[in-house]
């Protein structure tokens, strides 16, 4: 499996990662190698095998009671944000 530069660029875009030209070459090479490596999976006979999304088969989702347990702590939580105004998180203007 060999990835092209445009393909790697489009993956980086999909994942919202700024990649330099120099990094791009490295990733084209290493991602191609990784994908070739994992392709050995195609040899496995998985005909009727169910995919396993979770290591504990047989467990099911627990449901919690519909209760409000939280109080307003936005000041504490926003201490980690770089750009806040009037309790709103700021981002460059969103155009729809």
């Amino acid at each position, binding site marked *: 499996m060999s990835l092209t530069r445009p393909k790697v660029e489009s993956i980086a875009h999909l994942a919202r990662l700024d990649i330099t030209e120099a990094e791009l070459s490295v990733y084209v090479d290493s*991602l191609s190698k990784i994908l070739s490596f994992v392709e050995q999976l195609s040899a496995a006979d998985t005909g009727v095998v169910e995919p*396993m999304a979770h290591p*504990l088969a047989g467990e099911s989702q627990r449901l919690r009671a519909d209760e409000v347990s939280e109080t307003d702590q936005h000041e504490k939580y926003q201490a*980690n944000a*770089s750009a806040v105004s009037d309790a709103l998180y700021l981002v460059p203007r969103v155009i729809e």
Partner: protein
Amino acid sequence: MSLHTLSVADLSAGLARKDYSSAELTQHFLDRISSSNPALNGFITITAERALGEARAADQAIAAGTAGVLTGIPIAHKDIFCADGVRTTCGSRMLDNFISPYDATVVERLGAAGTVMLGKTNMDEFAMGSSNETSWYGPVRNPWDHAKVPGGSSGGSAAVVAARLAPVATGTDTGGSIRQPAALVGISGIKPTYGRVSRYGMIAFASSLDQAGIMAPSAEDCALFLSAIAGFDPRDSTSVDRPVPNYAAELNTPVKGLRIGIVKEFFERGMDGATGTLVNAVLDQYRALGAELVEVSCPNLPLSVPTYYVVAPAECSSNLSRFDGVRFGHRCENPKDLMDLYKRSRGEGFGSEVKRRIMTGAYVLSAGYYDAYYLKAQKVRNLIAADFKAAFEKVDLLIGPTSPTPAFDLGAKVDDPITMYLNDIYTIGANLAGLPAMSIPCGFDGHLPVGVQLIGPHFGESRLLSAAHAYQGVTDFHRRIPAAYV
């Protein structure tokens, strides 16, 4: 004073007898940290003041007679666990300025048990690595040889325990991140069953594989601490509601009659000669202890590394999307628009291995590739889990090496991801199947420690710990301390 050479049980007894106070004990470790950490680089953050405060509180509890067995014992936390009011970096520039506003369940429980937090340990960035070289805060050194890696991703926790800068440390294990570094620095480390310990407050790498555990010199130390962190947590939907045994009380369960499966596939490939010899000696030791050793086969196990390197990146690519420069974490200077904010904040905040895994994950989940990669890997994962299940119908525990080689040179594998990924060849299977597993020291290849791995069935921690304890009763590898740190 040589307080740092004592076991947790001995320290606890000493505190109870008031041979020394927790404040003195804590200061002893803080002093060792000040003198040794600059070279070792095992801690990212040292919380000295907080530790001494907690130690004084512990001393009051001891004086008041309300202390538990862990009260006043210092501990180091992997910097993947959120601690309220403490910088929590996950080894990443992305979280260099992140102060957690809450405690992880593991941190909370250990705090409630009276332990004293010395600081936050270095780790591979977002736990992605097997050598601790991907940390934004620089590599951790192996206490046995500073030119070698300590393993990863819990390399800081491993190194500070091996160097006796902390009696015990927390770690997390997604593909071997507790066991492999434990092996490479000559300590014990247990990764419990998936769901045994809450993941709440543990910064996620691959949610279906991540599990918190304990790293300490001996299985006994691990047992004491595992009882404190294990158990149901309503804040984690994948936490299992099941009683927690008193692991320490069950340590002396005899090995006689125990059926241990030698996993054929583990011994067929990849292991270097000296490691093989040492692991085979462990088999003899268990035979001598009265265990029955039988060969078992897990035919799909050789596919565990490629399976893991599809599943883990897929989950990580999604888990790490929340780091976007908006609510926390690194934000680039003067973003010109939203796209620029996202791309530069993430591009600058994440290191190269993290970016590589995010992209691998985005690719294997993307339209047109999902079935061939992600879905296929989830099916193979099922095959691997079924192999283990079949094996545990025949035996009580499985045994094999932890790492194919002892600690390697810093920088030796950083440019070759596949070679680096193959370090996890023996450890990944347990994560894919959600099984408990531990690594214990089993000798030395030259001056470097080697570990052996035991794997148990789901919720078989007690059996793992007692088997390890029996071995440690007839060996002393777990008590060896690197000369520079004695």
